[in-house]
Structures are given as structure tokens and as C-alpha cells.
């Protein structure tokens, strides 16, 4: 590649004033930056800061509402991902797009296999193997080209994906959280590779939550917050401390219910207790207690294991070691019905697919988990006369905005009202412990406030809540205690007095607790 000869002042990629809205929520407010050939631009920001949306726009997955891009000085507006790839954008995502049932070389050159001759569609296997080997050597992937991709380790899959990026002759390579599932050794190899790619003239957009890595690798930095760029400049101008300020630096608005005042004295037996809960590859040595009338928050970045832990606690996924106790009684790994009997309830983060029957009514959705308690004891016949008023009362209590809770499908409700339906379902079961995973995702501000108030009321009634959120302000406003997860472990714990956005965030980024 003769990249050096084309080195001029024209940036490799220039992004100018991108905006993007999803339904009514604006997620990007004019994002602009540029990156030159052979540069590494480190991109950091909290969850929801707009990094992913920006990367998706560059890779052609999403189209911007406004704004323009230029690749080597030429207008660049990819119609789809394929078009962006053709233009030389390689997008290496966190969720890799490797087909486990295809071989390494098939994956590497899918749709671009060399042919025996122009006229015949037969694959020229020897040539394909040779080409694949070339790219595999370039990234240091040392496996047989015929190996099924399912046998590769996460690190090797990553290398394969990068090799595929090279095979499309990438000019810009986006690495989105590339180290999440890598061992430290694999991470080292990836860094060495990144430097080699950079030396060959590829512009690299390196998105990561691991600040040390970003600082170590980058020539320039881009910090995003709330869909805006808060810093764009040389890495030398940034210290880790300033980086975090640029990421956070936002005041908590009056969204949250007033602090619930003095926390009452806790009873001795915790409602929920985890002792050394581990599952290989997922979580490691989790110790956690939730007592009566307490709201405990779990904060962590994407891929920290927060949602996976919630699923293990509720028995949706197994765990290999450690104990989960509810009111002192030990629960078997994966035994969901025992958890339901003991008064546990779980709000999934994926409301659309796991939480609701979208075409059923609010009534049908809400009654689902409590049907047994509304059935006659002998035949199990549903006692509609008891159920209906209970549902109506619940809808009132939740302040559910719905024309007819028995007819209108929940699909037609707003995100906030859908979430209320899910909450209502569990409240009908009279739970003692609620596990909420991202309870306000996709919920508008007004409804959020109502949900927060409702949660505060529930704990006042003696219920306990374990809430998982990627929004730090939400947890600070809501919780008595916050534990922070990083790479499947609980790395620190903060009581209400110690809440500090910066410190909590630092912990989540895997930096030592600096309290």
C-alpha cells in the first residue's frame, strides 16, 4: 500500500454535524470529527452517549437525519452496510458477525470467493486458501483455514473479523469494544495488531470502555456525552481525570423522588443474599445482600455482567458455584418456580421480546403471573369476577394511560405504559423482592417519574428492590446502596453517603476505587 504518497491534509474520514433521532428522542446533536490516515482515534463516552449510533452511521447501518461525511475528500453516504464496506469501512462489532458453521476461510471471503474462471461459478479452493492465509497471517491468526469458526476462541474470532476487514481493503476500521471477551494475552496481541494496521495507513476508530487501553493506543481522542462531542483533540491534552469529567459532568435533574429520608434500621436476615456466586465465563465470586425495604442498585457498563447476574439470581440461567438465599432459604440454581413461590419477581430489560405479549391486552398481560391466585382451588377455573376488579384497581394504581385495558393491545401503548403493565403484572403477585433490569429503558420522562415514585412507595411498604441500570443518575436518585460490576465481578460498593457520579463511573471502568 502506498498510503504515504497520498498523505495530504485531506482527512481519511470527516464527519460533519450528524444528527439522529429515534421516534421522538434525539440521540445525536450535531456530531463532528475527523481522523487522518494511519491515526487511531479513541472514542469514549457513557452508555447512551451516542457512540454506537455514530459508528452505525459510519458503517452504513443507520442513516443520519442531517449531516454529511467525506471519505478521503469524497462525499460518503453509504446506502447500507454493504455499500460502506465497498467504500472501505470495516466495522468490527462487539457482537461479531462470524458464522460458526462455516470454516475460517469461508467466513473470511464469504461472497467474494475466487473462482476457477470468469465463466464458471466454481470456487477456486487453492486460491481461496492462499488468500485467506495471507490475511490470517497479517493479523496473526494461526489456525487451519478449514477449521469451523465455532472452534475458535473469542480472541481468534476477533482476529478473523479483523482479517475480514483487511480483505475488503479497509481504509477505516471501527473496533467497537474489541477487548470485552479477550484474555489479557489476546488483548496484547490485539494492541500489537492495531499498531501494525495503523502503520499500514488504516484509520482506526477505537471505541472502548477501558480508558487505559484507549489512552495507551490513541493519537487523538473523542469524548461524547448525551449525543454531543465534549472533547475532540490530541491524546496528549488529556489526563484520565479530565477524561472522566468530560464524560460525566452533568447535573442530576429533579427527576427523582425526594430522598426517602433516614434509612430505617435493617433487620438481620437479608431478603436476598448471594454468597460467592460464580459461573465460568460470566460472573465470578458475587457476594450481595438486599435487606427489607432496601433498594440496591447494580451499576455496570455494557458487558459487565449486570444483566447476566440478574438472570442467574432469578434462575433463568444456571450458576455453578455459590449460594443464592431468599429469606434465609437456599435456592437451587435455575429453579424458577421456587423463586416465584418465594416472592421474587423479575422485570426483563428486553420488554418487547421477553416481557410482554405485544398483541395481547394490558389485562391479559398483567394477569399472567397471578392467574393461580385468581383461580378456584378445586378446578383451577379462572375467577373473572375477582380478577377484573383487581386488574382495574392495578391500572388505576399504576396510572396506566390506556383506553381499554381489556381490548387495546399493549403494542399500541407508549413505552412507559408498556413498562407499567409489566410492573403491574408482578405487583399482582404481591412480590417481596423485585429485580428490575433497566426499568426505564425507552420510557419517557413523565412516566419515569411515576415509576420512580411507585418504586419508592413499594419499599415503604416493606418490599425490597434490586435494580440494574446503565444510567448512573437513576441509581443515585433511587438507591440506598450501589454495587459496581466490572468484567463479571463486583468491584466496589457505595452507600448513599458515598454516592459520587465520578467515583462510581471510575469503578465501572475498572479503575481502582479512589474513595
Amino acid at each position, binding site marked *: 500500500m502506498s498510503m504515504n504518497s497520498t498523505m495530504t491534509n485531506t482527512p481519511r474520514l470527516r464527519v460533519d454535524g450528524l444528527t439522529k433521532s429515534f421516534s421522538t428522542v434525539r440521540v445525536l446533536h450535531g456530531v463532528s470529527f475527523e481522523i487522518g490516515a494511519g491515526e487511531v482515534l479513541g472514542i469514549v463516552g457513557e452508555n447512551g452517549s451516542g457512540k454506537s449510533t455514530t459508528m452505525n452511521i459510519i458503517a452504513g*447501518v443507520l442513516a443520519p437525519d442531517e449531516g454529511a461525511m467525506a471519505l478521503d475528500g469524497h462525499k460518503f453516504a453509504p446506502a447500507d*452496510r*454493504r455499500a460502506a*464496506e465497498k467504500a472501505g469501512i470495516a466495522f468490527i462489532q462487539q457482537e461479531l*458477525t462470524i*458464522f*460458526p*458453521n*462455516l470454516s475460517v476461510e*469461508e467466513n473470511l471471503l*464469504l*461472497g467474494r*470467493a475466487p473462482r476457477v474462471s470468469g465463466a464458471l*461459478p*466454481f*470456487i477456486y479452493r487453492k486460491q481461496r486458501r492462499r488468500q485467506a492465509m495471507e490475511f490470517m497471517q497479517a493479523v496473526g491468526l494461526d489456525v487451519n483455514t478449514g477449521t469451523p469458526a*465455532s472452534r475458535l476462541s*473469542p*480472541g481468534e474470532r476477533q482476529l478473523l473479523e479483523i482479517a475480514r476487514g483487511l480483505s475488503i481493503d479497509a481504509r477505516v476500521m471501527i473496533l467497537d469494544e474489541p477487548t*470485552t*471477551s*479477550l*484474555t*489479557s494475552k*489476546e488483548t496484547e496481541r490485539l494492541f500489537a495488531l492495531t499498531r501494525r494496521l495503523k502503520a499500514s495507513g488504516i484509520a482506526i476508530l477505537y471505541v472502548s470502555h477501558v480508558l487505559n487501553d484507549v489512552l495507551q493506543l490513541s493519537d487523538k481522542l473523542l469524548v461524547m456525552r448525551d449525543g454531543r462531542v465534549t472533547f475532540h483533540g490530541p491524546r496528549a491534552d488529556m489526563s484520565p481525570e479530565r477524561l472522566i469529567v468530560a464524560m460525566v459532568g452533568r447535573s442530576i435533574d429533579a427527576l427523582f423522588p425526594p430522598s426517602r429520608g433516614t434509612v430505617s434500621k435493617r433487620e438481620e436476615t437479608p431478603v436476598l443474599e448471594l454468597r460467592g456466586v460464580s459461573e*465460568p*465465563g*460470566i*460472573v*465470578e465470586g458475587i457476594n450481595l445482600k438486599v435487606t427489607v425495604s432496601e433498594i440496591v442498585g447494580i451499576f455496570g457498563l455494557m*458487558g*459487565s*455482567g449486570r444483566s*447476566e447476574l440478574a438472570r442467574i439470581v432469578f434462575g433463568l440461567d444456571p450458576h455453578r458455584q455459590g449460594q443464592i438465599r431468599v429469606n434465609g432459604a437456599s435456592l437451587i440454581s435455575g429453579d424458577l418456580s421456587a423463586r416465584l413461590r418465594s416472592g421474587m419477581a423479575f422485570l426483563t430489560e428486553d420488554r418487547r421480546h421477553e416481557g410482554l405479549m405485544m398483541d395481547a391486552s394490558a389485562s391479559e398481560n398483567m394477569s399472567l403471573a397471578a392467574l393461580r391466585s385468581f383461580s378456584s382451588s378445586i378446578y383451577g377455573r379462572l375467577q373473572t369476577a375477582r380478577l377484573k376488579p383487581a386488574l382495574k384497581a392495578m391500572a388505576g394504581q399504576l396510572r396506566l394511560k390506556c383506553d381499554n385495558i381489556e381490548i387495546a393491545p399493549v403494542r399500541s401503548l407508549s413505552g412507559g405504559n408498556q413498562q407499567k403493565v409489566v410492573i403491574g403484572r408482578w405487583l399482582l403477585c404481591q412480590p417481596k423482592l423485585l429485580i428490575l433490569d433497566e426499568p426505564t429503558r425507552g420510557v419517557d420522562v413523565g412516566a419515569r417519574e411515576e415509576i420512580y415514585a411507585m418504586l419508592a412507595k413499594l419499599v415503604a411498604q416493606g418490599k425490597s428492590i434490586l435494580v440494574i441500570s446503565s444510567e448512573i443518575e437513576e441509581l443515585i436518585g433511587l438507591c440506598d446502596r450501589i454495587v459496581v460490576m466490572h*468484567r*463479571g465481578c463486583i468491584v466496589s460498593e457505595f452507600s448513599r453517603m458515598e454516592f459520587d457520579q465520578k467515583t462510581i463511573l471510575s469503578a465501572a471502568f475498572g479503575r481502582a476505587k479512589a474513595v
Partner: protein
Amino acid sequence: MKTESIVQILNRVLRWSPLLFLCVVAIVFTILTRRFFTISNIQAIFVQSSWLALVALGMNFVLLTAGVDLSVGAIMYLAAVTVSLAVPTAPVWVVVLVAMLVGAVFGSANGLFIVRLGIPPFIATLATAFIGRGLGLFFSAAQALDAGARLAAVGRGSWLGIPVVIWFAAAGLLVSLTLMRALEFGSFVQAIGADHEGARRAGVPITRVTWSVYVLAGAFAGIGGLISLAQTASVSPAFGLNAEFLAISAAVLGGTSLFGGRGNVWGPIVGVVLITTVQDGMALINANPYAYPVTTGIVIFIAVALDSLRSSLTARVERKRIRALEPASA
């Protein structure tokens, strides 16, 4: 760490389970009757397998894309009725071409419903199965029709000492192997079945490939119907009934996943031979005829249980990880 590798080994052994299963069944019948392990009986098994092998090979493409084709039995019937009525005395190559065309046209209609109208394959082909059988009944006036003498000769004939019907199945196998291994089509089919959305992003021509697999399934079923017709020498209204379920069973027995993306070309052949062997063996030991379907059912059940075991093991091996599985480093 160690348990993971045991899971992987078990997973690899299960890949060969269809063939092992076939060997076990063959050994059991060899022990039960001396008439089983003879050259003539083994040739008979292959002869009886050939029509289903063709249908199952076609079905295999569809299953690999995570689709299904419930209309292949109806296609067999329609193709058999068409050749019996339209070209009863034509040369064999014309008859083969007509049967294949009837199947391909029918299959392309299936494919259009699925890729253009977005109807789920199960529903689309369920509907066309009724349409196809209905058309066949209409054309034949629900009468049994005789195959021409020339065609009947094909059913009994040999070439180079090997029955002609086996040559047909072998040709089908060769076409399948070529499509799946020598062309990128095979990778595309596997990719679509493994991850539809991912395949779209990777630039796989999904519409064209998906449509093609139904055309192939139709064409293979058309020829399968023709072979069956040549062997039985007549086509009754029940011709090809439930063939789709036998074909799906054979593919699954051979290790093709009903959820797409997993399976190879040889698998359905093993599955078909297994099904035929069970039926052949049952006949040789003079079992109660009513026990045949029960036994076939049990064989399918065991195969599907093995398949789901393998799926769950695969899922375990490929599970998403947050932490690397390395000795905990402080």
C-alpha cells in the same frame, strides 16, 4: 476448563451419531436374521431408498436455510400424474425433464410466496401442498393411473450392473455435493440458516438463495416422484402421501438441524438408508406390519432427541462470555 472439553468431545462424537446409529441397527438385524446381511438385500435397501433419497436431498437445502417444505409429497404426486397423462410413451429423458420441470415450477411458486410475500415457509408450503394434491386429483379424476411400459422398464432396469434408480439417486447426490461444496451457494445456504440477519449484513443474496432452495426441493421431489412411479408402475391418489415427513425425518436423522445452518449432504442419505433398513429388517424378521410405523416413529424420536442434545451442547460451547475463561488473574 476440563468439563468444557468433555462437552466438545461429546459434541464431536454426536456428529457421527447418525452413521453409528445405522451400524447399530444393521448389526441388530444381522444378528436377528441371516437373510439381512446379503448382497441382494443390501442392494434392495438402496433401490428402495433411492426415491426418498432424492426428495430428502432437496428437502435438505430448505432445512439448512431454516425453512421447511411440506409440499414435496404433493409435488411427487403432481409430477407422477403429469408424466402419466401427458407423456406416457415419450423417451425417458423427456419424461425426466417434464417431471423435473413440474417440480421446479411448483417449487419456484413456493419460493415466491416465501421471499416475495413473506409468508412463513411452514404455512406457505402447507397451503401449496393442498393445492398440489388437489390439482393432481383433478387431472387424474382421482383415478389410479398406470405408468408407461418404458418407464416401468426404468424402474427395473440396470446399467453397468447397478439398478438405474440408484444412478438417479447418485446423480442427485452429485448435484447436491457440487452445489454445497464447489459453489459459494453452499456457504450462502449455511450462512442464511445460521444467522439470517448476519447473512444479510454480510451481503449474502438472501432472496435469490432462499428462492433457489425451494426450486431445488421441488425439482428433486419431481424426480423422486418419477422414480417412485417407475418402481410402483402406477400412481394412486395416495401416491407420495406423507413423503414430506419421511424426507424431513431422514434429513434430521442424518444430522440436519430443523433450526437451520447445520447439516451436510451425506446426512440425509444416511437417514434415508436408516429408515429403509428398519423397514426392510422388520419385513425380514416377519414382524407384524403394524409395528413398522411404530418402529420408524421410535427411530425418528431417538434421532430427534440426539439432535436436540447436540443443539444444547453446541449452544453451551458457543455461549456468549463476559469474562475470558482463564485462570483468575488478580
